[in-house]
């Protein structure tokens, strides 16, 4: 890489001047375009046709990719290994799910005009207070960001103020998501218990079961991923991003030169939680259900594996990791369902041994090799 000065550009547009971001956005939007064209313009039956199921699947991968970017922001750049990001993802998902439930209206099995089916089934008289307002899209969409953000704010405030870091923080994030899972399993919580929220029909008036809506959701997720990536990239290329890296490597030293480290950690943690919530909200309408299994500690650990496989502290590595692992998961669970966990374990071991910097490390090495080759040729010519 060429030596570089920190940039003097406006912080939010700074990523557009970077080669990595340009390449990333180029690849992402080309992929979105290709899938759309192959889905819409290529006739069914042609081997090139991408069917609605696959589009839906890709949309799901993209929401996972956004989640992985959120995790990489806190883990890669801030050094906080969160094993509970699934919780923020699930809460964003639940906020979206609650909106979708309220959209069902009186078309549910029991035909109640306001109460979702599971509440009628449990003989509830009225809507709990925290379900109020979710019939309005703007409120629900705000909650998609605010609910995980608030949880991260309170949790992070307590954790970072007490200077809990490292393994201890990982363990309590894990405990957080586990506690939430147990809570959401309870029917009394009012989130549908074990079954969660499902049977969704419409999002903003679009029928969720139509292929066009699915394509729309896939594209929306792609755009959200691009925006999330740009935001994270803007953060990590700012001076604040360098303070994060400094905190990651020498926390006491960073505090000593005058930065209130716990506030920086809290800020980045909350941003990351909100992105995870957004990812969850895009995920739910595409899979058609949200239930407490998304809070499972195993899921949160799996997210970390995606990031590790793709390459930590690169952001695009997280995207590659999330898509690769989930694609492999789709294939494996189709072919040999029992072998999936072994395959995941094997992938993790192989990458750790052979590619300690993940797939992104491999790409970077290749690029450097090409660059030095070019330099060599230029010298030879000169």
């Amino acid at each position: 890489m060429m030596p570089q000065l920190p940039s003097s550009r406006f912080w939010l547009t700074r990523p557009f001047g970077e080669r990595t971001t340009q390449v990333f956005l180029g690849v992402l939007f080309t992929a979105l375009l290709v899938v759309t064209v192959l889905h819409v313009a290529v006739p069914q039956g042609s081997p090139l046709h991408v069917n609605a199921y696959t589009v839906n699947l890709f949309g799901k991968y993209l929401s996972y990719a956004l989640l992985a970017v959120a995790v990489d922001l806190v883990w890669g750049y801030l050094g906080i290994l969160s094993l509970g990001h699934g919780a923020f993802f699930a809460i964003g998902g639940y906020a979206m799910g609650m909106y979708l439930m309220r959209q069902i209206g009186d078309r549910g099995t029991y035909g109640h005009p306001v109460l979702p089916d599971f509440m009628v089934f449990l003989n509830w008289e009225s809507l709990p207070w925290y379900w109020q307002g979710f019939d309005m899209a703007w409120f629900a969409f705000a909650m998609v960001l605010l609910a995980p953000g608030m949880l991260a704010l309170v949790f992070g405030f307590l954790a970072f103020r007490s200077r809990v870091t490292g393994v201890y923080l990982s363990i309590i994030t894990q405990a957080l998501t586990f506690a939430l899972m147990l809570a959401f399993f309870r029917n009394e919580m009012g989130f549908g218990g074990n079954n969660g929220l499902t049977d969704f029909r419409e999002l903003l008036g679009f029928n969720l079961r139509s292929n066009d809506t699915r394509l729309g959701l896939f594209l929306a997720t792609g755009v959200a991923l691009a925006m999330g990536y740009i935001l994270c990239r803007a953060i990590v290329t700012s001076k604040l991003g360098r303070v994060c890296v400094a905190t990651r490597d020498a926390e006491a030293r960073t505090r000593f030169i005058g930065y209130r480290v716990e506030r920086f950690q809290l800020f980045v943690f909350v941003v990351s939680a909100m992105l995870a919530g957004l990812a969850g909200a895009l995920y739910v309408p595409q899979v058609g259900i949200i239930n407490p299994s998304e809070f499972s500690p195993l899921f949160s650990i799996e997210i970390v594996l995606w990031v590790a496989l793709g390459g930590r502290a690169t952001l695009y590595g997280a995207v590659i990791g999330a898509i690769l692992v989930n694609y492999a998961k789709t294939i494996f669970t189709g072919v040999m369902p029992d072998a999936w966990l072994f395959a995941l374990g094997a992938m993790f071991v192989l990458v750790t041994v052979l590619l300690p910097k993940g797939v992104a490390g491999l790409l970077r090495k290749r690029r450097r090799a090409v660059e030095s080759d070019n330099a060599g040729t230029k010298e030879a010519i000169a």
Partner: protein
Amino acid sequence: MSLLQSFKTRDRVFEFMAPAASPVDVRHGPILYMEDVTVSFDGFKAINKLNLTIDDGELRCIIGPNGAGKTTMMDIITGKTRPTEGSVWFGSRHNLLNMNEPEIASLGIGRKFQKPTVFEALSVFENLELAMAADKRIFPTLTARMTGEIKDRIDEVLETIGLTQLRFQPAGILSHGQKQWLEIGMLLMQRPRLLLVDEPVAGMTEQEMERTAELLTGLAGKQSVVVVEHDMGFVRSIARKVTVLHQGSVLAEGSMDQVSCDPKVVEVYLGADDEEAA
């Protein structure tokens, strides 16, 4: 005179009305003034009635055997340790005993620890950028831009510490000596009035020591510098005035030659050293 005007005229400014970070007042000579300072940890007196004054722009070396209280003295000045008794003034206006660590740091007292800690993943340039005196709250940091002025300031410090060639290299690849210089540079970015430097040449090669001596003597005059050091050769090469600490108080003070002739000093410190050497 109208009533309104009578409010405007002030013959005194109350202490609590004065801006908190008002500049250090050195009109009366010393920049640091410690009087009768005592620190006891469970009855053990790490510092015992210590009196020390550092003049503005002075380069002072503090020597003394292990356990003489050198590090504790630094801890008191930077606000890490509170003395049991005594007073510590920075200039004639700031009572350091009423301030916490960040306040003292922002007042212009910089401290370099023994073990160099630089941000290894960041470049030398970025290390200096982060250390610079600036608005260090979240949003100003997020939206901060690199301006020509900041760049000039960083380049100036890079020049002083002799790392201009390596400015885009990650700090992790620097040698031990270079890391020490970078750390001194990071202190300089904060435009300190008083630099506290703890054992700067431990583990350095002969050439690195020479460079460090040049660097520190170059800084004196612009800043006041207090160096705690074990290496006698190094102290001899830079010091104009040396203070010898022993069991928490000042044993002797003066030029290196005066001090090394002092029989008390020879007994507790230099003598012992010479025997070891022999």
